[in-house]
């Protein structure tokens, strides 16, 4: 089995510029990016190439040889079932599959997405004798890393656990001991890995553990981890999640582009460094702090409205961030009314008010706008708003009052 070697990753430190994404603060690697990470740590992976158009894909399959596998590169599971992974026996099939897969929309098992396929990964087909499952994950409850191994790979781990709980061996990594050869060998033996594949499996687990720590991962999952006819052990798939907060020290991951922000508002928010998630309603929302922002969505929904987005202005928001936020929200044509729900702690309400006044001078806010300001410097903020006497602006004292008002205005706006 040929083991791939990759060119070094290009690019400057995009990691530094990456926008923070609040409560899902993690970056998922595409399969091939995960395999590149594995390869850098000596984990055996099939030789392969990435392509973003049909012509390049066919050139790649010719180089790799047939049969080969063409795999959609999207940050979501369930690609196989969605038709995103195909085997090509020859050039015609390769062209046909690449054509079908590139550009297709794939939804996750829970309806996430859709994720559009912009790249395919092409690798030589492996002669598989056994499929295992391996993972390392941060166990938030135990505050430890957890390693898992099963000889029932191929299916997802929830199915394994359901079918035969004993077939999934789980071990915490004790902070004092770490995870070395001895721990890996014990895990492989306990999971019932075939004896002639045990040493190589254990060696791979140790390398995966090193990759996990070196890259600040919170999840590495290999499913399947396969034993080939030649009794080689290779990682045939990769799922890797990296802690967003640690990206500043990972220039080698700089080329990773988050493909979730293709929506115009999400793109715009990302450029401005705001935490924005698009939802399917028509009420633009801004809150400060992820918890209050989520709670604002909940109360707007309870009042009968449909939020158009989640937008967390974050702690210590300044006027400039508010101008940016209003630009993003008003650029969304679906929005018929806006609610700002601010309770100031580190955020100062006078800064928020200044931002609102500044923004109304720069951009046209053509929809009714409800503001609720409470907390640090709220009196100053409310006084500024009162002086400015902006058209379309409604000040509400409470969160529930703000939610009810914005829903009322949205309904009036939608029927107008």
């Amino acid at each position: 089995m040929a083991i791939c070697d990759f060119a070094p990753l290009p690019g400057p430190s995009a990691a530094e510029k990456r926008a923070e994404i609040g409560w899902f603060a993690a970056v998922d690697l595409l399969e091939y990016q995960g395999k590149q990470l594995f390869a850098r740590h000596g984990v055996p992976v099939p030789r392969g190439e990435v392509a973003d158009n049909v012509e390049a894909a066919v050139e790649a399959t010719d180089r790799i040889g047939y049969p080969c596998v063409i795999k959609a590169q999207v940050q979501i599971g369930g690609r196989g079932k969605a038709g995103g992974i195909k085997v090509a026996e020859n050039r015609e099939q390769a062209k046909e599959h690449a054509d079908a897969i590139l550009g297709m929309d794939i939804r996750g098992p829970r309806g996430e997405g859709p994720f559009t396929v912009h790249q395919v990964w092409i690798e030589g087909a492996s002669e598989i004798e056994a499929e295992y499952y391996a993972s390392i994950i941060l166990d938030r409850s135990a505050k430890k890393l957890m390693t898992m191994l099963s000889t029932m790979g191929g299916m997802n781990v929830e199915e394994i656990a359901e079918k035969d709980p004993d077939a999934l061996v789980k071990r915490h990594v004790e902070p004092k001991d770490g995870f070395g050869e001895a721990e890996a060998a014990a895990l492989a033996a306990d999971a019932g890995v075939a004896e002639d594949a045990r040493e190589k499996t254990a060696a791979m687990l140790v390398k995966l553990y090193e990759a996990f720590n070196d890259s600040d991962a919170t999840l590495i999952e290999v499913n399947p981890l396969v034993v080939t006819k030649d009794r080689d052990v290779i990682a045939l798939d990769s799922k890797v999640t990296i802690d967003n907060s640690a990206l500043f020290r990972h220039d080698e991951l700089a080329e990773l582009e988050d493909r979730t922000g293709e929506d115009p508002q999400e793109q715009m928010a990302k450029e401005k460094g705001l935490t924005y998630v698009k939802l399917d309603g028509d009420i633009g929302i801004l809150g400060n702090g992820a918890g209050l922002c989520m709670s604002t969505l909940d109360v707007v929904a309870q009042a009968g409205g449909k939020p158009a987005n989640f937008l967390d202005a974050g702690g210590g928001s300044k006027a400039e961030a508010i101008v940016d936020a209003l630009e993003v929200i008003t650029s969304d044509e679906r929005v018929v009314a806006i609610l700002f729900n601010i309770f100031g702690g580190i955020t100062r309400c006078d800064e928020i008010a200044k931002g609102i006044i500044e923004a109304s001078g720069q951009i046209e806010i053509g929809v009714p706008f409800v503001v609720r300001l409470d907390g640090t410097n709220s009196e100053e903020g409310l006084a500024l708003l009162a002086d400015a006497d902006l058209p379309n602006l409604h000040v509400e004292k409470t969160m529930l009052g703000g939610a009810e008002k914005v829903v009322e205005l949205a309904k009036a706006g939608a029927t107008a």
Partner: protein
Amino acid sequence: MSIIVGDDTTLVISGLTGREGTFHGLRNRDYGTDVVAGVTPKKGGQDVDGIPVFDTIKEAVDERGANTSMIFVPARFAAAAIHEAIDAGIGTVIAITEHIPVHDMLDVYWKAREAGVRLVGPNCPGVLSPEKANVGIIPAQFFDQGSIGVVSKSGTLTYQIGNELKQAGLGNSTIVGIGGDPIVGSDFIDVLTLFEEDDETELIVMVGEIGGDAEERAAEFIAESVGKPVVAYIAGFTAPPGKQMGHAGAIISGSSGTAEAKKEALEAKGVRVGKSPTETAQLAVETIGAKA
């Protein structure tokens, strides 16, 4: 009594000389917190409005008797500051800084546990015991002294609920922001344990949000070990489902981490869960009223 911070607190602030550190540090002092020192490397000998600044936390402990430290330094230096506080013999560390890498927090977490140091946060608003001490960024004007303990993953949501309680004429023993990061020094169970033992606390309000299984584990703990009434609020019912790459997370926690699952877990153990911050405050008022 109160928990974690109180009349005995002598505070050293790492990052006092920074813009936000100065703003909130002075607010904490103005509230009445005994802020004895600030720490910024290479700025020893300076002062911030009369608060002496040292190069190290050790000096602040030796010369000013600091027993509690607040971490207000940028994320990439914050874990080192927590290590420094633990090594200097500080008993309580409250970390406000957000975006500390989770791998750094794993190390810090176990070091604090082994040293017997109480760590709160990171990425939290801090701890406020009304009329006694405020350590962090919680706007104290929205909280009166009283008998309700609050423990929360979210900052702004906590102020919201505290404000509702105040308007209903109720006050707090202590408000603890534990932070919503994957690894926090103190979780719901740690703080529930302290409130259960605290004489001043008669009722506990717990504020959770989607993600992880801390609320589910707290529900089990409440059923087994908490005699005081608990009311809860969970945020994130309309949050979009996070995309899931692997399935390993669901396997280890046995929970989907959704707001609905958390609400059900709590209600199954007899904890009343409010639909909004306002309703949660009302439930607390009703429960306290019924008890009196």
